[in-house]
Structures are given as structure tokens and as C-alpha cells.
């Protein structure tokens, strides 16, 4: 949990209005695991003031070691600033933070479900699981084709199922349909997307009676990312209060709903 400047090595509008930023290797980030995030501080000086929580999207071998990246949509001043970074610019980060995905050791069939930009952390997870020789199916959902991560950028071993609400690519509808279909096949499931998606997935998993573990990576508004501001509270149905930044962002959906 240190603040450091990360140098941008590469940047691209990868698809639709979704950008990718690649950073030069930083020893701190070598400790990161899929599902962990960093706070990215945007702009110069105190405005915008707060960091943006960005999950690590993917790693690649660069000239000087393992480069890491963020995948994001422009939704406000901070991400707009990030989208204008170019090679050689630097971004102050604090990370890696939070509790990431926890794939079980001796299971084979992994189902990954990403809603919209929620695909960002799942790509790294898919890369790792495929490299370990596990069977990976990644369900990608979005409003339309421009919101779908290009399947050709994924490892060939990863099976991809696409759903769009407008039917412009893949199946028309939401990720819940393929999730329900594939749940009996999988040993463990992982999801990232908007809150209503988690609730829908939880219902499907519960109603299936299969007791399959589903890990959700939550997104929440954070001021600090390190467990001291108490902005990112979630209230599990069974009571109490948890912080997305330090108790999560990965939660077993059964512990929330």
C-alpha cells in the first residue's frame, strides 16, 4: 500500500468507448492478483481530488518486465483525464489493494461472467486460469456490440459466449441466461458487473439448488481504497456492514444476498 508514479508505455481506445492504459513494470504491482485494484489519481494538484478505483485488467511481458494495464470507460472527469494519457506520461497510483478472486486449487471448470466494463478484471483471471490448463468459459454481456470486449484478444483456449441486450452480437438478452445454462457444468463461477447483475446471478445460483460458489467482484464509490474513509459500505442481508475496499472487493455472493 504505497503511493507511486507509474509511467504509461502504451495507450489505446480498444473498442467502443473503452480505453486501455499500459504501465511500465512496478515491483509493487508484481504482488497483485486478479481482482485486486489500485487507486489512480487523476489530474494535477487537488482537482479532481479523489482517486479512481481501477482493477488490474491484464499483464504482459514488456521490455523491462511485467507491464500491467487498466481497462476503463470514460464516465467523468477522472477517466476522461486518464483517457488522454500518452506514452511517457505518469499516473500516481496506490496499490495493489483489496482481496481478489480466489480460484479453488483442484477444480477444472471455471465460469466467468462479465457485465459491461466488468469484464476488465476477468480477462486477467481468464489468462491465468487458461495458462494453468483449466477449462474457462467467459460470458460477456453488454447493451450492444460496442460494449463487448473483442473475443479475439482472449486466449484461444477460452470459450466465449456473448450476450447483447439489443441483439447486435451473440445472443439477445442478458448474461443470466447463459449463466443458468452453464452453471451445472462449472465447478466455480466468478463475476464482475453492475450490482443488479450480481443480484440476478445470486438468484439463479440459489434457485438452481446446485450450491455452486460464485465470487462477485463489487464496484463501489471509494474515497480512499484502503479502509479508512468508510465510503464503500455494503450491507449484507444478514446484517452488519462491510467495506468493499478491504473486506472485498471479492465477496461470495451468498454472503451478501
Amino acid at each position, binding site marked *: 500500500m504505497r503511493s507511486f508514479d507509474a509511467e504509461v508505455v502504451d495507450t489505446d481506445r480498444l473498442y467502443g468507448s473503452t480505453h486501455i492504459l499500459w504501465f511500465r513494470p512496478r515491483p509493487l504491482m508484481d504482488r497483485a492478483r486478479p481482482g485486486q485494484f489500485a487507486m489512480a489519481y487523476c489530474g494535477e494538484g487537488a482537482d479532481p481530488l479523489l482517486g479512481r478505483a481501477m482493477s488490474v485488467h491484464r499483464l504482459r511481458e514488456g521490455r523491462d518486465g511485467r507491464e500491467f494495464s487498466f481497462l476503463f470507460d470514460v464516465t467523468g472527469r477522472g477517466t476522461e483525464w486518464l483517457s488522454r494519457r500518452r506514452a511517457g506520461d505518469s499516473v500516481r497510483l496506490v496499490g495493489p489493494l483489496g482481496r481478489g478472486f480466489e480460484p479453488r486449487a483442484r477444480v477444472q471448470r471455471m465460469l466467468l461472467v462479465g457485465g459491461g466494463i466488468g469484464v476488465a478484471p476477468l480477462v486477467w483471471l481468464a489468462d491465468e486460469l487458461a495458462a494453468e490448463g483449466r477449462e474457462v468459459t467467459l460470458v460477456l454481456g453488454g447493451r450492444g456490440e460496442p460494449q463487448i470486449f473483442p473475443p479475439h484478444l482472449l486466449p484461444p483456449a477460452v470459450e466465449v459466449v456473448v450476450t447483447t441486450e439489443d441483439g447486435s452480437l451473440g445472443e439477445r438478452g442478458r448474461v443470466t441466461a447463459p449463466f443458468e445454462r452453464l452453471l451445472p457444468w462449472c465447478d466455480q463461477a466468478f463475476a464482475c458487473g453492475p450490482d443488479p447483475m450480481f443480484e440476478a446471478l445470486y438468484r439463479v445460483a440459489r434457485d438452481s439448488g446446485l450450491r455452486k460458489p460464485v465470487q462477485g467482484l463489487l464496484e463501489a464509490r471509494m474515497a*480512499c481504497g484502503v479502509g*479508512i474513509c468508510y465510503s464503500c459500505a455494503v450491507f449484507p442481508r444478514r446484517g452488519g456492514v462491510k467495506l468493499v475496499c478491504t473486506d472485498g472487493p471479492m465477496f461470495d455472493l451468498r454472503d451478501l444476498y
Partner: protein
Amino acid sequence: MDLSVNLAPHHKVELRLRNPVMTGSGTSSNGVELAKHYDVEQLGALVSKGTTLRPRRGNPTPRTVETPAGMINSIGFQNIGVNALIQQVAPIWEQWTVPAIVNIMGDTLEEYGLLAARLDGIPGVAGLEVNISCPNVEVGGLEFGQDPELAVDVVREVARNTSLPYLVKLTPSVADIRPVAEAVALAGAHALTVSNTIPALAIDVKRRRPALANVFGGLSGPAVKPIALRNVYLAASVVDIPVVASGGIMSGEDALEFIMAGATAVQVGTATFLDPEAPWRIVRELTAWCETEGVARLDDVRGAARRRD
């Protein structure tokens, strides 16, 4: 170079800080999280999350929103309650030499007394900060801080129930901070914290509703610094107890502005959200400034910017 300060010079138990940089209440939890990563012994003091008699879950989300050079929060006193604090956190503080100060918040006069009594004599607790200025609770909090007579009642209730040194945290939501500062000091407070967040509102135009679930919240960050600076200057002009500054302190230079306005110590709050190491960096920047300027003691520059009458 001696950067140490005593926040309770008029009390039999001193509250000695090795330097004037403290954490601000509600911006570093109870110090335990930061202590996993940084050396807390390098700070002047830690101030706990606002602590109430019973645990609280806090307000619904969204609880914070970014505003120009600032943020508005309405956390609503999510905290583990004073009993859990005593059982789980105070034993950790006891192992540290850095003083830990518990920020207490009551709904009623009686609750302030009960909180003070519970914390009196607890190993690990070096002092109290009496919060009479929180804008994010429905009862108590702010209203105690806006009326000098009610503020004095709280101070007397706390004083009756503890031998610990205590600071009283004032609100900027008054026409003039001097009457309440003066009244609280006369009633026996050992130090003042000036000040808390400023009640504020942000609207989410896209959703056509307030940005925060609780509608209103408290504004903090660099946006409030000039207001806090004026309040510190004014409060320090009417009291002879230490004034601890709080409001948008992001750097050693900001801390110096407050010290030159008359502050004895400073609290780093929102800055810690941007960089968890901010309080430590501010200690380093203050120390470096004193070395460069040949300042041996902060007393030599304290109040330097005040008008001499």
C-alpha cells in the same frame, strides 16, 4: 530541533506530542490499518474514528461525493462502539508510544458523560476529542457546537467524568467562532480543534436527486482550507489554550500556514484518502522546512502571521 508540543499545558496530565502532526478523526479509522504499512510512532498523535456509546452501521450509500478541490461526506458514524473500542483497539494503542485520542460523539448530554467515564483510565487512551460539530447525525452533534451555553454544558459533563486531557472539536457553522471558542475554553477545555466539515450539498443532475443518500454532508479538503484558516486565526485570538487546526491540510506548507495563524498542532484528514502516507509526508516536509529556515522550535513561528496590536 524540537517539534514537540503539549496540547494540555493547563492540565495535570500532559498531552505531549513529539511533533504537531495528528490524524484527523474519521479519516484514518482507528490507526490500526495505517499502522500495518507505516510507522505510527513518527506521528504526533492519532485521533480515532468518531466513537459512540453503541455500535453504529452508519448511513446508506452513496456516502461521499467529490466536489471541486474537495469532497462531501455523510458516513453517519459507522463505528464499533466504545466497548469494542476499549476491548479490541485500546490494547493495540497501549503497545504504541504515540498518543491515541478518542473522538467521542453523544446524542445527548448524558451520553457524552458516559463515554468520558467509560474511557477514563483505559490503558492506551491518552486523551479525548469531544465532537460537538458533526453535521451528519440527526440529533446532538452540531447543535451542541452552535450554542455556547450547550457547548459549555457538554464540556462540564465531560470534565466531571474524566481525568483525561480533552480537546473540543468546534464547528465552522457559526457566524463567529469566537464566542463558542471562548466559552468552551473558560469552561475548562484543554484544547480546541478548529474545525469540522462545513455542511454542504451536491446534486446529481443525471439522477435528479442529491448525490448523497443522506442528502446533506460535510465538505472537506483543500476547498475549505481558507475558511478553516480564518477560524483558527479567530479562535486563537480569544483563547489561551492550544488550538489544533483541521481543514484541508495537504502539505507541510499548509500546516505552516495554520501554525503561523496561531495553531499549536494540525490534523491531517482528507489528504490521507489521497495518499495514505500523507501525515508522514507532512511531518517530513515540516521538519525539512524548519531545517532550511533554521527554525529550532515551532514556537518561534507560531502566530507569526498574526496582526500585532
